[in-house]
Structure formats: C-alpha cells, structure tokens
C-alpha cells in the first residue's frame, strides 16, 4: 500500500495510556520528513497527521517509538453486538440448566418422592437437593450475590441485593431445616429449595428476554450504522482500486457506480446522477446531483456513475455525526423521568425496610406457624419489588422515540427537547427558507412596448451583477438560464432601501421599487395595475426605467414549498397555533399567510427583533417552538422553548437548535411533535405501570389480603411477576417502533 496524499490521515494507537505517550508519539511523527502536523486525541486514541507522507511510513514511525498503530476504524459497534449476543446466549444456557434442575427439585418436593426429613435417609437426600440448589444459585445466580456484596460494601443497594437476600434466606433456612429438623416445630418444617431455584430461573429468563427486547430498541442506530458501505473505489496512481472505507483519505477521488452507496462525504467533480438520501433525511424523492454539488456518505446513487472528491471522512462525516447525535440524545433523560430516578435511588433500601416490617408484623400478629409465614411473605416482598421496571420506564421509551425521529430525518440534540416538543402550543415559522424555498426566482417579465423580455432581463442582469442583494441573485440566475450575457455598465450607485441608479450604454437606468420611480418622476402608466396585482400575489416588483421612461418591470418571488400548506395543517390538527414571522412588508406577508393557512403572522420584523417576538409569545404563557435556518435565526432559536433548524443539508450539528431537521420540509416539525407526543404517552404508560405494579404488588406480597381473604402470594409467582414486569416495560416501549407520525 502506498497511499500518498497531501492531506490528513487518521491512525489509531491502541496503547496510548498516559499524557507522556501523547508527547512521544507526536514527536516521533513530527520528525518524519514531510509531516506538517501530528495531533493525538487522547480520548479516542486516534492520531491525525497532516503532510505528504504515505500511511505505512507513519505506521512504522509509531511502531518504532514503541506503540502499535493501525489505520483508524470504528469497529466497536460490531464488537459490542457480538459480546451482547454472547451474553444473551450465556443467559439462555443458564436459564435452561437452572430450569431443568429447578423442575426436578419441584417434582421431588411436590410428589413427596424423598423420605421424611427427620430420618437420616431423608436428611441425606434433602442434603443432595440442597447442594443442587446451591449449584443453581451460584451458577445461574452467582452474579446477584457478588453484585449484592460489592454494592453493599459501597453502601449501595440494587436489584441484586433484593434477589440475593430473597433467595439466599430461602436456601439458608431450608438447609438449616435439613441439618437440624428437630429445632423447628413440625408445622414450620418446610424447605424452599424449589422456590429459590425457580426464582433464579425466572429472573434469568426475564433478563434474557429483556436483553433481546432492548436490542430492538437500538435498531435505529444499527440501521444508521448499516448505511455505511465497507469499501470505496478510489483513484490511486491512475487506476481505480477498492479499499476499506477506513483507508479513504481527504481529497481522495472516489468513483460511485449506479446502485452503489456513497462511502464518505464529498463534492461531485465529474458526472451527474440522482441520489437517494431518504435514509438520512427522510426526503422520499431522489435528489439530482451535478458537478460542484455535495454528496453525503450513506446515500444511494440511483442513476449515473460519477466521481467525487472526499471532503469529510471517518468521524467527521454527516452520517457519523448523526449516529453520534442520535446516540447522545437516546441517552438523555427528559424531566418526566426524574421522579422515577429519585424513587429508584431510595427504592431498594426502602423495600428492605418494608421487608423487615413485614417480618415483624407476621411475627407479632400472624397465625402459627409464624416462622413459615414470616419467611414466605418476606421472600415475596423482596422478590416482587422491581426497581428495574421503574428505572427503565423512561430511558427505554426515549431510546425508541429518538430513534424513530431519526428515521424521519428529525435529529434531536437535547434530551428535554423531546418532552417540550410534545407540550408545544405555538409554532413560529420563519418565512424565507422555511415556508418558502428561500431561493427567489424571477417569475414575471413585463416590458412596455418597444422593449422585449430579453432586453429587460439583460439591462437588469447587467446592473444586478454588481449587487449582493438576494433578489439580484435571482435576476442574474434568470439571465443565465436564458443564455443572456450581461454587459458591463459605466457607473453604479445604490439608492438605499429603494434600488439602484446606473449608467448603461450611456443611458441612465433606474432599477428599484415604485418609490424610486415616483421620486424620479417616472410615469409608470399601465404598469401600475398589473404590478399591484403581482404584489398582491406575494411577488416583489422591480421597475426598470431608461432615461426617465418606464421600460417595464420584473416580478420576483420566493416560491412556497409544495408541502408547506399540508404540513402547517398537520400542526394545526395537533392542536398547535402556527404563526409566520417575516421581514417582508405586510401585503406580501398577508398573501403568503393566506396561501399556506397560518393562524397568524407578524410582518416587517427586523432580524434582531425575531427573538423579542418569541419572548412576547412566551410571556402570554405559550410554549413556543421557533423554526428557522439556524444561522440568521440563532437568537430566536435559542430563546424559544424548542428551536428547530430546518433543511440544513449535511451540517447536522447546529448549536442554537434543539432539533435539526435533515429534510427541507415542514413535515419534519409535525413529525417531531407527533413522535414526541407518542413517546411521552409511552413513558407515562410505563411509569404508571411500573409505579402501579410496585405499589400494588409489594403490599400483596406482604400479605395485606391475608386477613380478609386468607390469600398469600407464593414467592415463585413473585419471581415470575418481577421478571415479567421489566420485560413488559421494554415491550411497551418497542411498540413505539411501529408508530407512524
């Protein structure tokens, strides 16, 4: 391999362990001729090297300095999955073995196959059963005991504590009965080996099922990771070679053939095609790409073959950033989950205390045999209490909800945005670029007699080439489309707020609004009616006069996105008031507002005043979302309850936004709101279920029904219920996967 390139390369050094290693490696690399810069990232143990040196020389330099380097690659995900799968299998095997032994113990206990415990033969036989149970407890339940002990030493208690005490007490008491049967009164002379082993079996089975279901909750991440192809076809020394994607370097020229996935981010340099970006942006229609356009790693090339120059590789690609963002957001905890966290924190010690009270209550007020009742109820209380269901209720739904949103091109940056999006009352939409395309185009050319459309456009384009106004861009673009070459002009003078005065082919040309014409005494005559008509349709009119005579006007408009109206309607159906915010004049704003059907609009807002408008709405008690482009609207986005940055292409990590919409469509906002609502509902179901379960199950296990009905909960049933409760929570969260916004 001899991949020469003048830009940066990423290496992975597995054995960087201290700050001094960083120094050694950086020095070693910098001393290699041709290396301009070497920077070690201690956190992910990667080294970024820039300079005109081949990768193998760099690898050798690192190994000469005593470290092991490889070309950077991120394979932790598949590793993790393999380990998870191994753990799942291990749990299943333990469940099966524990299950078989447990059933055997249940059989001999229930069928009375063993001799009386008071006889010597009986003691021996039950002793064997005790040892078998001990085997199950240590083999399949050993982790509960070591976990309980460790956390106890740390003044901590968790689910392991409850399981370990519950099953441990059962085994110790039973073994005591086997050893000293006569020290226990006859009616209390009962053993609980079957109970202890069955509980361990159920809990193992529950863990395995839970793990399985949990794996599904991170399907969204796996799907995103799966988008990245394994290899790339790169031009090296005049020929095209397939190389692992990790070896693609900056500025490499990459070939993509029809049907292939684009390996990294870059800029198209040869050819053209249509690219399906739906899995990244949710945009269903393939996007046309020509030379100079940006292509995104992970999207699929639909038609032509093309070459592109790699501009972002490794962890810097849009896809990697999306994966990173989704993962972070999935870990975030919205406010609603905080209560459960507080309860979780004191849950286990509280249950331990309840267990002691239960024991004392049965001892003081319970019928004979007290010891048996004490034991059965205490065990049931310890086993049935399930902090897991409570602790999982929120995060597991958030994981699925955030993943679901990502599927629709909605990237949630902050955890509380999920909750707040579900509680919005008002959505404020910036007009330009949000409701409209944000790219003004010339939609009307109306010359007066004596002038042609081409003349009009040529004059306007010749003058506007010198302007930086966004409308000017539309004029220049229109002339390019009609192959009209702008000519040079003799002079150019901007008339602030009104237009431009220029000298073109020795003639004085005015280009601007009606006021500019009126001020200069230009008679617009018949142009007036027609131009007012266009104004009412939301178009901006630019008049052109030559030597004081009207030559015509151009109508420029920023087309409304085709699906804006529908998306706004969806938001309204979700019970949200939609307000449009724009710097445009009232008339234009009114027209656009009526066309897309917003509830209200605020016109003539200066850019720096947008944030104040948000504050004003919030002061009225509204929960306000602001939707904008994320750059001009940054203060308004930051000031709103939830800031949405819309249609930002590949720049996914916009600081000021809580949520980034990959797709340019407003449907993303409606999707985000309905997914958030569904997720919140799901969390509430889980929380109600988990709180309800624990607050009902624990008193029942303690025997609260006994005085009225004579009913007691079998600890085995308690074990099964506990195992089921957390599986239920995860399964309920998984229902969100089928949600369609």
């Amino acid at each position, binding site marked *: 391999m001899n991949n020469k390139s003048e830009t940066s390369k990423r290496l992975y050094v597995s054995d960087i362990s201290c700050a001094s290693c960083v120094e050694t490696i950086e020095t070693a690399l910098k001393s290699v001729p041709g290396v301009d810069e070497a920077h070690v990232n201690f956190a992910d143990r990667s080294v970024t090297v820039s300079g005109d040196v081949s990768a193998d020389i760099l690898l050798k330099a690192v190994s000469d300095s005593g470290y092991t380097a490889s070309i950077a690659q991120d394979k932790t995900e598949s590793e993790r999955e393999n*380990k998870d799968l191994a753990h799942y299998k291990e749990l299943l095997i333990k469940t099966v073995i524990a299950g078989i032994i447990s059933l055997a113990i249940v059989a001999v206990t229930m069928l009375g196959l063993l001799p009386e415990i008071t006889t010597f033969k009986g003691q021996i036989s039950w002793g064997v059963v005790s040892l078998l149970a001990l085997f199950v407890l240590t083999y399949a339940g050993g982790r509960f005991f070591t976990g309980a002990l460790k956390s106890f030493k740390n003044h901590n208690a968790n689910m*392991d504590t409850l399981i370990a005490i519950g099953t441990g007490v059962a085994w110790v008491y039973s073994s005591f009965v086997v050893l000293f049967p006569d020290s226990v009164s006859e009616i209390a002379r009962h053993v609980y080996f079957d109970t202890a082993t069955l509980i361990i079996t159920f809990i193992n089975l529950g863990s395995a099922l839970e793990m399985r279901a949990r794996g599904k909750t991170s399907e969204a991440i796996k799907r995103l990771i799966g988008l990245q192809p394994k290899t790339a076809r790169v031009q090296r020394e005049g020929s095209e070679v397939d190389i692992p994607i990790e070896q693609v370097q900056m500025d490499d020229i990459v070939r993509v053939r029809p049907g292939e996935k684009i390996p990294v981010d870059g800029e198209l340099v040869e050819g053209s095609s249509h690219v399906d970006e739906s899995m990244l942006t949710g945009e269903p229609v393939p996007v046309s790409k020509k030379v100079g356009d940006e292509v995104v790693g992970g999207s699929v090339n639909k038609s032509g073959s093309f070459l592109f120059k790699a501009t972002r590789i490794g962890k810097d690609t849009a896809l990697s950033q999306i994966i990173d963002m989704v993962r972070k957001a999935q870990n975030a905890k919205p406010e609603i989950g905080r209560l459960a966290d507080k309860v979780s924190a004191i849950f286990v010690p509280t249950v331990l205390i309840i267990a002691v009270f239960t024991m004392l209550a049965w001892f003081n007020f319970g019928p004979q045999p007290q010891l048996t009742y004490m034991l059965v109820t205490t065990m049931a209380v310890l086993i049935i209490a399930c902090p897991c269901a409570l602790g999982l209720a929120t995060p597991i739904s958030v994981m699925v909800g955030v993943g679901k949103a990502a599927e629709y091109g909605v990237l949630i940056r902050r955890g509380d945005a999920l909750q707040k999006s579900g509680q919005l009352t008002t959505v404020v939409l910036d007009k330009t670029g949000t409701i409209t395309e944000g790219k003004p185009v010339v939609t009307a050319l109306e010359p007066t007699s004596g002038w042609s459309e081409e003349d009009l456009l040529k004059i306007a384009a010749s003058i506007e080439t010198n302007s930086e106004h966004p409308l000017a861009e539309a004029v220049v673009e229109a002339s390019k489309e009609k192959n009209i070459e702008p000519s040079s002009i003799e002079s150019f003078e901007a008339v602030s707020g009104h237009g431009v005065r220029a000298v073109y082919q020795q003639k004085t040309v005015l280009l601007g609004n009606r006021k500019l014409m009126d001020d200069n005494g230009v008679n617009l005559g018949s142009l007036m009616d027609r131009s007012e008509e266009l104004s009412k349709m939301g178009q901006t009119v630019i008049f052109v006069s030559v030597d004081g005579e009207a030559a015509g006007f151009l109508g420029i408009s920023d087309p409304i996105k085709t699906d804006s109206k529908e998306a706004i309607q969806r938001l309204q159906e979700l019970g949200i008031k939609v307000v449009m915010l724009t710097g445009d004049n009232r008339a234009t704003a009114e027209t656009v507002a009526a066309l897309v059907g917003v509830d209200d609009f605020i016109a003539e807002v200066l850019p720096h005043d947008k944030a104040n408008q948000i504050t004003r709405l919030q002061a009225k008690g509204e929960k306000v979302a602001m939707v904008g482009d994320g750059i001009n609207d940054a203060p308004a986005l930051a000031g709103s309850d939830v800031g949405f940055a819309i249609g930002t292409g590949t720049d996914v990590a916009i600081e000021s936004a809580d949520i980034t919409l990959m797709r340019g469509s407003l449907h993303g906002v409606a999707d985000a709101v309905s997914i958030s609502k569904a997720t919140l509902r799901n969390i509430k179901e889980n929380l109600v279920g988990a709180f309800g379960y624990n607050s009902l199950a624990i008193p029942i296990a303690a025997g609260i029904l006994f005085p009225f009905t004579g009913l007691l909960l079998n600890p085995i049933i308690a074990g099964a219920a506990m195992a089921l409760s957390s599986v239920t929570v995860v399964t309920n969260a998984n229902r969100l996967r089928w949600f369609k916004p």
Partner: protein
Amino acid sequence: MEIIINLTGLVLIAFIVWWFWIFKNRSEARVEGNLLEIVVDSGVYEPSVIHAKAGQEITLRFVRKDSNPCAEKVLFDDLEISADLPLGTPYDLTFTPEKKGEFEFTCQMAMYRGKLIVE
C-alpha cells in the same frame, strides 16, 4: 423472646437507614494529572466519588467488566454527557467540568451511582 426479635428488627431497620443513607464514606478518588480509571463491575462504580478541579480537562477511563446490560451506559445528566461503555474495552470519556458543584453519574436506570465533585 418477643422483645428480642422485635428489637432486632428495629435495629436492622436502623442499620439499613444508617448504612445506605446516612453513611457517606464511599470509595473516593481524586483525578490526578488528568486521568482516572473507574471500574464498572458487579453493580457499582469503583471509585464512586470523584473529585476534580473546575475548568480542567479530565479523562475518566471507564473499564466495564459487568456484562449486565444496565452497565452499558453512563450518564452525567446535569452535564448532558453520556457514553456507551463497551464490555471489556476501556472507554475514555474526556471533558472539562466548568461549573463547581456535585454532579451525579448513573447508569440508565440510576441503579449504578457515582458522584463527580468539581471543586
């Protein structure tokens, strides 16, 4: 006999309250240099109380030995930092705590608990 058993029960409750809630001396450590290793095993973080200086970049190297899926994530909720911990492979979490104060870090279900004290 009755009194003894009831008393034992009450003492046991007092002990639970004291041991889990009142007693505070958990395994503590200070970030020396800028690196500290935290082992995630058997339901706990070791050390579980970490002292660091405000404004100074630290790297917490999480070594997860616990195959329990609960151990997979570590969240610093108030700092908006989170990480997925691979099993068996050390994971370095580097960040700069800016604000002074006590910040809890927990697993996803808040059963594994630790505290970062920024001074």
